[in-house]
């Protein structure tokens, strides 16, 4: 591990590092420049800060919101609902995929329904869910679940089906039952696919949560955005959007991190 590398190799490593740093610095410059430009443009009245908001106002809003704790409340609510949404969507979707794998008859019967449900923009069902479940957190979670479950079913079922026939045959020669085949090979070999679906579901579930919060509008970043829009507080809207972007990125990165840990473990 710790052997001496040749100077040629060291030079290669050094160049790689220089490029990596340049990429990182460029990214930061873009971000800073954008915000600086925005600030200056608003300050000079090239744009109307009342409509476009302004970084310094956003910072002020953030400080005010965190003083009374409502920032953490709303962010927390959104994150909580999203996590429940994508975890339950992934688990339930995987369970349905198992049922479909178990009975290819059921899979064939349900195929067209799944295709239609997959194509349907699930957010269109929002008002229906609101009426059926009521204006509660329940509605929001159902919305998030609905968005992620169909994709999960399709992806995971596909992955179950593409499990190597010869591996299954091998277990069959040992006399494996169907449940043993599922437990010993079909499910374990699909775990990477399930985790990558989990990653997709973070984004989908977040869409469901925000739409749900728009409709239910009691708490959460979606509620803040809708509320800010209604009372024309663009600072509040922009602040919420930025926090949402950060929260989304953090959730995605955590799942990606779990995935990496998992892949390494195997």
């Amino acid at each position, binding site marked *: 591990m710790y052997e001496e590398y040749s100077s040629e190799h060291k030079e290669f490593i050094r160049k790689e590092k220089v490029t990596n740093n340049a990429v990182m610095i460029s990214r930061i410059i873009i971000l800073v420049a954008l915000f600086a430009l925005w600030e200056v443009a608003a300050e000079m009245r090239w744009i109307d800060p009342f409509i476009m908001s302004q970084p310094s106002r956003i910072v002020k809003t953030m400080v005010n919101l965190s003083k009374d704790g409502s920032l953490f409340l709303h962010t927390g609510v959104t994150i909580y609902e999203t996590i429940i949404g994508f975890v339950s969507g992934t688990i339930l979707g995987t369970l349905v995929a198992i049922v479909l794998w178990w009975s290819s008859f059921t899979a064939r019967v349900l195929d067209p329904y799944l295709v239609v449900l997959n194509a349907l923009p699930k957010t269109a069902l929002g008002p229906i869910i609101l009426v059926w479940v009521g204006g509660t957190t329940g509605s929001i979670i159902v919305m998030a679940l609905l968005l992620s479950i169909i994709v999960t079913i399709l992806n995971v079922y596909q992955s179950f089906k593409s499990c190597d026939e010869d591996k299954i045959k*091998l277990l069959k*020669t*040992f*006399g494996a039952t169907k449940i043993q085949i599922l437990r010993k090979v079909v499910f374990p*070999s699909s*775990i990477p696919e399930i985790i990558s679906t989990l990653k997709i579901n973070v984004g989908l579930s977040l869409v469901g949560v925000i739409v749900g919060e728009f409709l239910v509008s009691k708490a959460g970043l979606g509620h803040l955005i809708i509320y800010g829009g209604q009372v024309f507080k663009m600072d509040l809207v922009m602040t919420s959007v930025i926090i949402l972007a950060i929260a989304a990125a953090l959730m995605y990165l955590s799942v990606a991190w779990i995935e990496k840990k998992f892949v390494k473990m*195997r």
Partner: protein
Amino acid sequence: MDKVVELKNVTMNYHTLEGETQAIKNLSLDIRRGEFVSIVGPSGCGKSTLLSLISGLIKSSTGEILINNEPVVGLASNVGYMPQRDHLFEWLTILRNTTIGLEIQKKLNKDTLRNAERLLEEYGLGEFKYYYPKQLSGGMRQRAALIRTLAVNPEILLLDEPFSSLDYQTRLAISEEIWLIIKKEKKTAILVTHDIAEAVSMSDRIIVLTRRPGEVKSEHDIQLTTCENKTPIICREAPEFRIYFNKIWKELDVHV
């Protein structure tokens, strides 16, 4: 003569929506205890089908298959199957991989586990038992796959082109090793291969099949004059080796 496996007028038809395929037609053969038999034949002539039939994975359309004079109903219990690729499970250690058959048959206990460990020790994988398959070379993986088959202690081994995914040198070395293991564990073996040299060097007998639908075209008892420590690699030096090779090559009638 002690017959372990006996096929009597076996025919196998596959049915799909596209049509009916006759894979094997009216095939009869006997395998004697402790024998090493190779089956060669043109591509798609039903060799893998033949092994699936013997293992009881699929049922023949007509005809009879006997193992130890008992007809095969359902899965044959004393048959071990070794596929073309090793199919080790990447998420299990080598030890867990080699005991997967025992686990499935709910026979995993102290004794059987110790036996699997003994096999790993004996055949040079002892220090790798907690490694994952991807940390092993192709030859080592193939050996682990054989041990997985041996761990459930089958009487008859069915090997379906077990070396074809290996490069030539590994293939020579590993076929030698696996042959020695099979002889040492006193198993009856049926090997399907495309490699005539491999078949001649390893087998007591070679069965040549016709094009699909597969029938027995000819059988060859392989008798090579070598010193007493006969192994596949030494067999390749025998003067008769080339004669058998050419004879079978002509019978396979390969048109390119």
